[in-house]
């Protein structure tokens, strides 16, 4: 204390120099600081990214000349009309159905994991569960798909297990069914479905867990105390409270399934999904307008979905 310099004035001189002057300027005018901070990210995301999206949207209103194969840059809704062709509608319906089924299955598998992690796992186990979800979430997408190629292959582990259990007839019976069946699991829609569920499952677990963490334990006890059976407690208390989390998770599972083109290409049938159609139209076919129109479909579906989710209060669980 004793050697501290004693300053006479109540107002001290500034630090001076460039830094001091700039700091004073930012302090006097916080908007200037905000402008400086926001300009680089806004230039990048707002101009490069949104600009690209917008350019793509515009191209969906162009059409392709059927003879020359060149893009005609005139406003038309013709390309959107093409989406309504039976073969294209088929793709849309198939993709949306798949996304819906994947979402439901993910929610069912995710719930016990999330509930256990949120309510029963303590200390070390909490960390185990957290990492147990984070590691698969962040590990390589392609490697995960590849792992399933190994699992579902005709000579792979699944066939081997069923063979050892003398249950091979189950797989064969299932594969002989129309639509879901095929030559082997790795070239069936069942396989596609399994891989989708596997790859997007962690995206469902985390928000559901976050929502369940917020349910006070005594709420469930109160329900049991008031005479509700476990089933009633589940449907009347737990599920409604977890629902925002499930909806938040479903945003991911739904959106990711809608846009994916790699999984059905590697594990699946020749029936196409929206992502594959987009890829094919922009690539080999060179029909950018139709590809662009196809990408608008998931965007519109997700827009409606997000709007509904927002009304259900799902964003608080993100």
């Amino acid at each position, binding site marked *: *204390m*004793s050697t*501290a310099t*004693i*300053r006479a*004035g*109540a*107002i001290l001189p500034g630090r001076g120099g460039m830094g001091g002057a700039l700091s004073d300027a930012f302090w*006097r005018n916080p908007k200037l600081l905000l402008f400086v901070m926001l300009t680089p990210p806004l230039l990048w995301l707002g101009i490069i990214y949104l600009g690209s999206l917008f350019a793509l949207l515009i191209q969906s209103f162009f059409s392709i000349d059927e003879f020359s194969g060149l893009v005609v840059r005139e406003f038309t809704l013709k390309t959107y009309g093409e989406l309504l062709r039976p073969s294209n509608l088929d793709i849309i319906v198939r993709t949306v159905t798949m996304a819906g089924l994947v979402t439901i299955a993910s929610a069912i598998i995710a719930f016990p994991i999330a509930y256990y992690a949120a309510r029963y796992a303590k200390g070390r186990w909490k960390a185990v569960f957290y990492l147990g979800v984070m590691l698969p979430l962040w590990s390589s997408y392609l490697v995960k798909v590849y792992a399933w190629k190994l699992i579902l292959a005709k000579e792979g582990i699944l066939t081997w297990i069923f063979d050892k259990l003398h249950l091979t007839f189950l797989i064969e019976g299932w594969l002989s069914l129309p639509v879901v069946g095929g030559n082997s699991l790795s070239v069936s829609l069942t396989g596609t479905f399994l891989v989708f569920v596997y790859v997007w499952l962690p995206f469902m677990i985390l928000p559901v867990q976050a929502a369940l963490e917020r349910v006070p334990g005594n709420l469930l006890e109160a329900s049991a105390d008031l005479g509700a059976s476990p089933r009633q407690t589940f449907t009347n208390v737990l599920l409604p409270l977890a629902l925002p989390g499930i909806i938040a998770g479903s945003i991911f599972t739904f959106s990711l399934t809608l846009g994916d083109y790699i999984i059905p290409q590697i594990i699946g049938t020749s029936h196409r999904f929206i992502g594959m159609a987009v890829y094919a139209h922009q690539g080999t076919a060179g029909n950018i307008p139709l590809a662009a129109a196809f990408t608008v479909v998931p965007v519109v579906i997700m827009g409606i979905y997000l709007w509904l989710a927002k009304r259900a209060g799902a964003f608080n669980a993100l």
Partner: protein
Amino acid sequence: MPYAVSFQQVSRHFGTVRAVDAVDLEVEAGEFFAMLGPSGSGKTTCLRLIAGFEQPTAGHIEIFGETAEGVPPYRRNVNTVFQDYALFPHLNVADNVAYGQMIRGVAKAERLRDAEAALEMVKLPGYGARKPGQLSGGQRQRVALARALVNKPKVLLLDEPLGALDLKLREQMQEELKALQRALGITFVFVTHDQGEALSMADRIAVFNEGRIMQTGTPEEIYRRPKTRFVADFVGSSNVLSPDLTRQLGGPAEWSSLRPEDIRLGAGGGHEAQVTGTSFLGSATRVTLELAGEKLTVLLPAGSDVPAPGATVRFSWEPSALHLMGTEA
């Protein structure tokens, strides 16, 4: 000698909310000044105006005669003890205390020596190596105090400094803060919503309500001679009597205040009222009376006879105890 802090018609508006509304304020150099009021009364905003975290919408602020508006907080020779202490979690106690001097470029050995001296002053010698997370609430408070005082500010601001402490610790800190202020001679300005704290610690008090100062004065003045109903009620929960009741009780038709502890029960003469409730407070008993549809609180010292609820009692007071506040209060 200029005032330590002076506000001239200072306002701070947030949108349509007038947090501080045309306030005039003078804090003498070297005094222990309290800004007292309920939450949202503008007292904390005034403190932030002195610190420089807020800028006035209108008016003029001086600190020791120097214009303060437009000067950033880091150029004001004023330091703050924050309500939540705001200790830097990544620095140990010594580095927290030495932060101000580190910024000013004081050499490391010197600033750490000063920090240790400041920690001794707040009775935490040898705590320098700990992290704030390892300290109790009371200890954090002391570190926050040391961190502010080590810079020898012209004015020390304290925002609800004792709010988070338990009763016993709070009483002890009140004593220590007073002693520290007297020893250092630094002007202390502190904000509180606790009238007991303000009365016991401050040399002078400004009572805030709805962005304005209702009254400024010594604790004695504020307590004995409140100027408005609000002050009478907020400081010491006085009985505020309407002009009607005042007249009924023999005074002029003015608002008046009557301290609960100034009322005596049972003696001859005086007025009659009905007992509606009693509650035992330990050192005293609170008796609620009803008279002409208005409530009156009486504080009886321990050991007095306590009337039963429903009983009719006579009550009286020394003539000087009835404090008149005019017709407009």
